[in-house]
């Protein structure tokens, strides 16, 4: 079609990723360095280093949750199922390899050298004795191989998300009904894993995961630092990946799907494909976060993927601020650290005379109240504070600069 001859091309280069990404990554690097120095000086305990390392994993899960909820508008209340599955996948190798390292030398003491089958049977009865079995279930078929289990860390959450998402999005289930479906998914998975014959040791779960096979001689103080670094690296890479995904046109389309998916269809975009992409990618990253979390926690059991865990994840993101990645990360760090402070007996009881407020009981009430308050009074969450600071520095002028005719017009202000 005919258009005006001269096109005043005004290139407005936009950075591929927001400057906040580099601020976040810098802060993460400084944090990791400080913790490393303090830990090696003995200023903070190994247990606290582990808590911090676990927090980094939770932050990664929260950033993923922000992409799927804050950007794409899918309130998934089942993402911690992927987190748990990642943990189970790496836990299977950790348990197998460590038990092998204990059982094999013991069997070697016997007059007759043991066969491979004997070793495997011995490992089996060690691991599954607790649920009254001794044979390896089918799901453990790759547990001897670290490479295979690492692949499963990615594949199992990814495939579950792909199949579940495809079924749910294809039927155009949206909003609260989709949230209920995701909730049902994680509940069903937790209930299944609670059974002894699920093959993953029922409610005992997998334990002893903090012992890394082959590094039995390395003190936990050192291992905790390794995992802190690995978690920080995973968070940094995950953050970069998501910052890239939600920038540019992809971010545009995802936010458009969130705001008006029917309109996006009329633009020719396959909305379900974009939802499935966001759901599956975030599930995979959440699975990786879980695989780094549980070796630091030492134990995983089905209670970890109960619906409440995924609800907490949503609460962190809401308090931190939806729709901005650093908000979700800050929310997860703050709330989960506060939570362990309050429930771990860190907060002093308040004696009101007639009643003593014990924070181990009252923390959840406090958290619930803060969630309600954030939703009502500060829907942008903690991240909204950044807007306040920026607005004070650069006034957001939309119109002209003054009411009288001599005042500069908006177009002039840009020059």
């Amino acid at each position, binding site marked *: 079609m005919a258009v*005006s001859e001269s096109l005043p091309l005004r290139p407005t280069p936009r950075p591929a990723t927001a400057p906040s990404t580099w601020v976040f990554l810098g802060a993460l690097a400084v944090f990791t360095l400080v913790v490393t120095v303090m830990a090696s000086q003995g200023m903070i305990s190994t247990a606290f280093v582990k808590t911090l390392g676990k927090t980094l994993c939770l932050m990664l899960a929260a950033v993923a949750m922000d992409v799927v909820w804050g950007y794409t508008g899918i309130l998934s209340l089942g993402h911690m199922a992927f987190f748990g599955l990642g943990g189970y996948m790496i836990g299977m190798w950790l348990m197998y390899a460590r038990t092998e390292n204990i059982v094999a030398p013991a069997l070697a003491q016997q007059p007759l050298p043991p066969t491979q089958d004997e070793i495997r049977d011995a490992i089996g009865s060690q691991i599954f004795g607790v649920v009254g079995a001794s044979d390896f279930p089918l799901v453990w078929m790759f547990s001897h191989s670290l490479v295979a289990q690492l692949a499963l860390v990615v594949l199992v959450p990814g495939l579950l998300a792909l199949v579940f998402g495809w079924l749910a999005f294809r039927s155009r289930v949206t909003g609260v009904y989709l949230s209920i479906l995701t909730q049902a998914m994680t509940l069903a998975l937790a209930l299944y894993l609670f059974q002894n014959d699920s093959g993953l040791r029922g409610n005992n779960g997998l334990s002893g995961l903090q012992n890394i096979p082959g590094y039995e001689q390395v003190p936990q103080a050192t291992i905790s630092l390794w995992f802190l670094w690995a978690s920080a690296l995973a968070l940094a890479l995950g953050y970069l990946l998501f910052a890239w995904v939600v920038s540019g046109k992809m971010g545009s*389309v995802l936010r458009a799907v969130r705001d008006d998916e029917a309109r996006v*269809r*009329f*633009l*020719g*975009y396959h909305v379900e494909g974009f939802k*499935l*992409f966001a759901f599956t990618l975030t599930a995979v990253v959440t699975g990786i976060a879980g695989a780094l979390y549980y070796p630091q926690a030492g134990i995983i059991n089905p209670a970890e993927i109960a619906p409440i865990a995924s609800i907490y994840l949503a609460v962190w993101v809401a308090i931190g601020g939806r729709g901005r990645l650093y908000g979700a990360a800050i929310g997860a760090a703050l709330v989960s650290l506060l939570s362990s402070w309050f429930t771990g007996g860190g907060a002093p009881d308040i004696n009101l005379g007639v009643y003593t407020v014990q924070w181990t009981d009252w923390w959840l009430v406090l958290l619930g109240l803060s969630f309600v308050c954030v939703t009502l009074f500060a829907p942008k969450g903690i991240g909204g504070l950044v807007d306040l600071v920026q607005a004070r520095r650069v006034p957001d002028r939309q119109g002209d600069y003054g009411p009288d005719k001599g005042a500069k017009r908006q*177009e002039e202000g840009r020059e």
Partner: protein
Amino acid sequence: MTLLEVSGVSVSFDGFQAIDNLSFSIGEPELRAVIGPNGAGKTTFMDIVTGKTRPDSGHVLWGEENRNLVGLSEQAIARLGVGRKFQKPTVFEAQSVRDNLAMALKAPRGPFDVLLRRNIDEGRLHEVAAEIGLEDHLDRPAGALSHGQKQWLEIGMLLAQEPRLLLVDEPAAGMTTAEREHTTDLLNRLAQRHAIVVVEHDMAFVRRLGCKVTVLHEGRVLAEGSLDHVTQNKDVIDVYLGR
């Protein structure tokens, strides 16, 4: 050449016959105005063509291969080249004018295409922005635009898609006289190469378009022809103009 042929289409909602054995066809290029009183089925007609509503019977044939659009998804129909402008401007208010246009620009639509092919056709984007008079507003959030500007942005998004058939629902609502003239010019210019269906209430606007008019009433075509022809039709006067 006929681009779109709707034949024998009926649809009812809870017993209400919104479209009753409707037949309609438009060539490429052609400009057509569709008028009719409220409830005549104009919007439902657009919903059927764009795949939002599935008709109870009849078919909607498209293009050289006479492909039936009934049963295709909204995005598949949009990708075949059917663009739609809604009566109420529906732009993505939280995003900038640039982002709105960039999303609409003709380009591969798959998730991985969108993720990996990041360069936007800036030249085309500025061309469209200049056409709709929003070049100086590219970085403003669409929500901050006036109602008329949102109308223009929506028209711009339609242009950016480069569709073969444009379904335009009340393009002039909320526009100034000058803007209405610009809109009629634009539609006339586009009609040299595209098929355009304009739904409009404003007779003066339709007269300026100077094109063939289809009058809908109770889900059926009541009359078809030039504006003068249909305004002299007795049935049309009875149901629509005489009031």
